């Protein structure tokens, strides 16, 4: 079993970390007390920048740098927390929200203090009703304990947290769509520029950070940037929660040091494959990421190592597929996701997504043709890289990676006029 000492998930599953006393006992609010007493906003930003913390939402943008983009023009600033976790295979923010909400609150207050945000808004996915309730209870407990509200710990700094519940739209995880949604509009991504740092929520300078990113902040301030930067590869360091699911013995959230080889995560943390199965493909970074395969198990789980394999760390949703899984069906399931969740603004994403979905569905139903395979092999050129936001670019990576790796499996769907994994064709109905 793994030996990494958990940071973000320390105490999770053992203590009731929604309780202020328990959270404090677990090391909570030390950073907040220290920062409000001894640290200036500038020194916090410097520390976070020095830690090389990169955004845990998917894009991996350096957090300190993002904070530094805010214009110094005196306009009120917003800190928005992205808790709209909906990336296929990812369930870490869901866990952090429900299990250790005070850690998120501490991260929020620290970050707001660092960037001098006038307002904090937490956007919680609409489906996370339980998480929302837990968070709200934790928030009032934190407020009562003096960690949220006016004149925090006598520092003269005040910050309060507003919570917005989503209403069902994956695209609202895209930061500008999220801002639209908070403003009470359709959650459609904005044309950029202007970027949120300049014109974000209600047109004001805004930073949007992911839950896990914010949860890292207290630890960086408590234990120092050097400690954080020493975990894993220097360019993408730190602890990282990976959501492991699919065909493994022990699916779940695992906190690992960045750079841990994929095979070790699979074997040592997730208990390996089911008995008698062999590995077929792993989607390492959420539904938008391209697959890696058995020969890639030595690859480190971090931003740069996975990028070198033409895929990405993304949100850290690690979905394992063994030899019993049909790649056409897996692709169809993911493409259907993006088709359903596309906001529909851009032509390639809107039309291309539904087309690819229909083709895969037909292949899986045994009604595909060679012409369909040709479309799948060429459509990437016009579908990817031509849209306003990243959703459209997320449709093809997994499909392309498995299509290139298992061309014969796709071809077989045509020649056998059916799915070799589902001879009874029971799955077609969906």
């Amino acid at each position, binding site marked *: 079993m793994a030996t990494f000492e958990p940071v973000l998930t320390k105490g999770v599953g053992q203590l009731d970390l929604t309780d202020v006393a328990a959270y404090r006992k677990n090391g909570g609010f030390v950073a907040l007390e220290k920062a409000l007493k001894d640290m200036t906003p500038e020194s916090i930003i410097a520390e976070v920048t020095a830690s090389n913390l990169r955004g845990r939402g998917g894009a991996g943008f350096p957090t300190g740098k993002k904070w530094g983009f805010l214009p110094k023009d005196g306009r009120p600033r917003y800190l928005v927390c992205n808790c709209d*976790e909906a990336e296929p295979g990812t369930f870490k923010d869901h866990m952090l929200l429900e299990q250790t909400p005070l850690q998120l609150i501490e991260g929020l207050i620290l970050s707001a203090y660092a960037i001098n945000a006038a307002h904090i*808004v937490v956007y919680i996915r609409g489906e*996370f009703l339980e998480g929302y309730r837990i968070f*709200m209870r934790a928030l009032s407990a934190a407020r009562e304990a003096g960690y949220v509200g006016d004149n925090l710990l006598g520092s003269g700094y005040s910050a309060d947290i507003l919570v917005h519940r989503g209403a069902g739209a*994956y695209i609202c995880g895209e930061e500008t769509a999220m801002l639209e949604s908070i403003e009470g509009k*359709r959650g459609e991504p904005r044309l950029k520029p202007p970027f949120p740092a300049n014109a974000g929520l209600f047109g004001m300078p805004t930073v949007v950070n992911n839950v896990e990113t914010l949860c890292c902040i207290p630890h960086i301030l408590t234990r120092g940037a050097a400690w954080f930067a020493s975990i894993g590869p220097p360019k993408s360091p730190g602890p990282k929660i990976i959501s492991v*699911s699919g065909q493994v013995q022990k699916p779940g959230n695992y906190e690992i040091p960045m750079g841990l080889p994929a095979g070790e995560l699979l074997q040592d943390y997730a208990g390996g494959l089911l008995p008698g199965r062999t590995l077929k493909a792993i989607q390492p970074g959420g539904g938008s990421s391209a697959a890696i395969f058995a020969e890639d198990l030595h690859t480190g789980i971090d931003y740069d190592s996975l990028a070198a394999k033409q895929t990405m760390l993304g949100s850290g949703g690690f979905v394992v597929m063994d030899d019993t899984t049909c790649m056409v069906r*897996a692709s169809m399931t993911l493409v259907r996701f993006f088709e359903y969740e596309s906001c529909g603004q851009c032509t390639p994403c809107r039309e291309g997504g539904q087309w690819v979905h229909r083709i895969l569905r037909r292949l899986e139903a045994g009604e595909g043709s060679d012409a369909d395979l040709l479309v799948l092999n060429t459509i990437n050129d016009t579908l990817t890289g031509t849209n306003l936001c990243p959703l459209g670019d997320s449709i093809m990576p997994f499909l392309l990676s498995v299509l290139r790796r298992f061309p014969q499996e796709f071809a077989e769907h045509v020649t056998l006029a059916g799915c070799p994994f589902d001879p009874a064709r029971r799955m077609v*109905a969906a």
Partner: protein
Amino acid sequence: MAEHGDAQAALIPFLQYCQEQDGYVTQQAVSDAAALTGITDGEVESIVSFYSLLFQHPVGKHIIHACRTLSCMLGGADRLHEHIRRRLGVRNGETSADGEFTYQEVECLAACDKAPCLQHNLQFHYNVTPEEFDRLLETWRAQPAGAALPAE
């Protein structure tokens, strides 16, 4: 939120509240929301139609959201969904004949380690087998239904 921006920021919470009261976003709620936020009825409906958790038509007292995305698919969601559809006598997106249950296959619910998962009135149920679903169905039938989608 409206205090921090413009009135429209209150729209979605208001619609969620209306839906909790009425079961769905009624035409009256649309007009009230428009009046509250200073936008048109058409704009309100455009926004309502964008979000999958806002309903423009009456739905059952029990709303079942069954996840169909990759991890749940790998965990046997297809077999579960087939079972639910047969059991309720509905297709995806429909409401049972008695008007009690609305069934929707939805995208990733972020509980992939406990696949297949579903939500009943936004309460999670994990590792749901067809047999487990039948048990759940009995308890749902027995319990007095609260608001299908609580707004809090």
